[in-house]
């Protein structure tokens, strides 16, 4: 139990009469790359928002990084990073200014911010661009920068909400390399996606259909269980089964 960095028990979230998350229970292990899959509208974003403390659950007990999300949301917030569906850097600020700002809101010291900025710019090979405004950069770069910004304060967990939407396959590949690197350095990665090939990169995946988790295991075991050759087919089988 010690190494379960996210623990969700009987999470239910209702918006009026609509149940977005129906009695979810799962855990995520420390250092894991956990895929959180589902069709559009299946309730992924609602769940991720509850885990980040953006939304209050209707019922259920949720612990993230050892803290209760409902009662200790401030402690949770200090220990997580978040990259949203929408691209979340300021378009009219330069790369450097974005790093400065986001480092600042997590209470990092100026020196730490400077070091991290240099580290990531060097890693991404964007040293020359540090004073360009974000809006002038291609989308693939922006996404990698947004990821760097989201983990610059060394969170224990990083939540990625459809991080690779609209990016070309090569950039997506590079993006996943960054995710692996982060995981290797001990950061737990919680990622939602609807690209099924990306699901293969995850250590364990859960598949949500209509607010419920219908399957949860390693990609290999899921493929075995549903007797299909790819995650895509697992997903299609599950979604069909519902209808």
């Amino acid at each position: 139990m010690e190494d379960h960095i996210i623990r969700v028990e009987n999470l239910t979230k209702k918006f009026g009469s609509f149940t977005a998350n129906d009695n979810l229970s799962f855990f995520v292990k420390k250092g894991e790359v956990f895929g959180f899959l589902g069709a559009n509208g299946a309730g992924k974003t609602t769940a991720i928002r509850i885990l980040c403390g953006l939304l209050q659950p209707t019922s259920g007990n949720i612990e993230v990084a050892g803290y209760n999300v409902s009662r200790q949301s401030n402690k949770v917030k200090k220990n997580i990073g978040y990259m949203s569906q929408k691209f979340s850097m300021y378009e009219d600020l330069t790369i450097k200014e974005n790093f400065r700002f986001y480092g600042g809101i997590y209470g990092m010291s100026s020196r730490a911010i400077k070091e991290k900025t240099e580290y990531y710019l060097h890693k991404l090979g964007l040293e020359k661009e540090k004073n360009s405004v974000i809006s002038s950069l291609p989308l693939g770069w922006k996404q990698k920068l947004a990821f760097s910004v989201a983990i610059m304060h060394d969170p224990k967990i990083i939540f990625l909400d459809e991080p690779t939407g609209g990016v070309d396959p090569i950039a997506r590949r590079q993006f996943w390399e960054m995710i692996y690197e982060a995981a290797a350095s001990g950061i737990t990665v919680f990622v939602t996606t609807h690209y099924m090939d990306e699901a293969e990169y995850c250590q364990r995946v859960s598949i949500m259909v209509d607010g419920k988790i219908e399957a949860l295991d390693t990609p290999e075991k899921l493929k075995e269980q549903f007797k299909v050759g790819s995650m895509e087919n697992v997903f299609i089988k599950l979604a069909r089964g519902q209808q």
Partner: protein
Amino acid sequence: MKGFIIKEFYHIFRDVRTMVILFGMPVVQVLIFGFAISTEIKDAKIAILDYSRDNMSLELSNKIISSDYFILSEILEDENQIETVFKAGKIKEVIIFGDNFARNLQKEQNASIQIIADASDPNTANLLVNYTTGIIRNYMTEKMGKQSMPIEINTEYKMLFNPEIKSVFMFVPGIITILLMLVSAMMTSISIAREKELGTMEVLLVSPLKPIQIVVGKVIPYVVLSFVNAITILLLAFFVFGMPVQGSVILLLAESLLFIIMALALGVFISTVSNSQQTAMMISMFALMLPTILLSGFIFPIENMPEVLQWLCNLMPTKWFIIIVKDIMLKGVGLAHIWQETFIITGMTALFIGLSVRKFKIRLE
């Protein structure tokens, strides 16, 4: 917090549109209102139809024409022409002298003049008629004064606080109020709504920043800029239009600051109920600007409104601020005279801050 404010300034200074609204508009508006809109009458075109053509009717005509207010544009021959000249549109007023003007006046002490004004613009028509009767009355006392008036009442009037009835004095307080309202409320609501639209607000909310820090961080740059704006407008009013500040400048600035904070709180509140920049702008424009202009007493006197509207006016923070600005600038009163208005605005500020903090939390849930 510091980083937040710096970032907000970057947003403002890098966006041309924001800069134009923030700094271009106030200056342009003050100049336009100051120079172009004027309730004074100068060189209004009139026509005269004189059936007497005697020494006294001519003398009076000359008196009217030689005032600064009127220019004689046509001399009419008969009544049928009156309608034609009004329809042509250039002539605003026709003065008709009856038959035997001088004789009637001297013998029977009773002569008649008819004034016909183009009331398609009622304000102007009123003013013209007033000016004309004023001149006529003057002439009358001049002629008759020494003679046989049994009793005489001399009304003497004095326009206090704005002796020359300059319209600028009327507009500057209104403009300051409306611009501060617009800039503060609209700009903050839009800038917060923009963060929501772009998705950066989510990231801010996931961060350890408290909602109140986010709000204050967003608002402070606008407090500073609105304050600079208020000073700019006052300087313009002073140097370009010669508008005096009779009362304490410090009090005026302090009241302005209070009003700015009120408007910003309102802006934050608007942003909590709108999810896109478009909505924020629409709400600011229609729910805020129009009532602000129409119901603040800036253009239309509140005393003449139906009672229901007068009640609505009381809900407009702008009404109270205009009173404050006028009282300080023109009457030179101190806080003792405007504490009620100040108190009302303070109350509104507290209300909006309370509401938006509550709303902000609810959205967070």
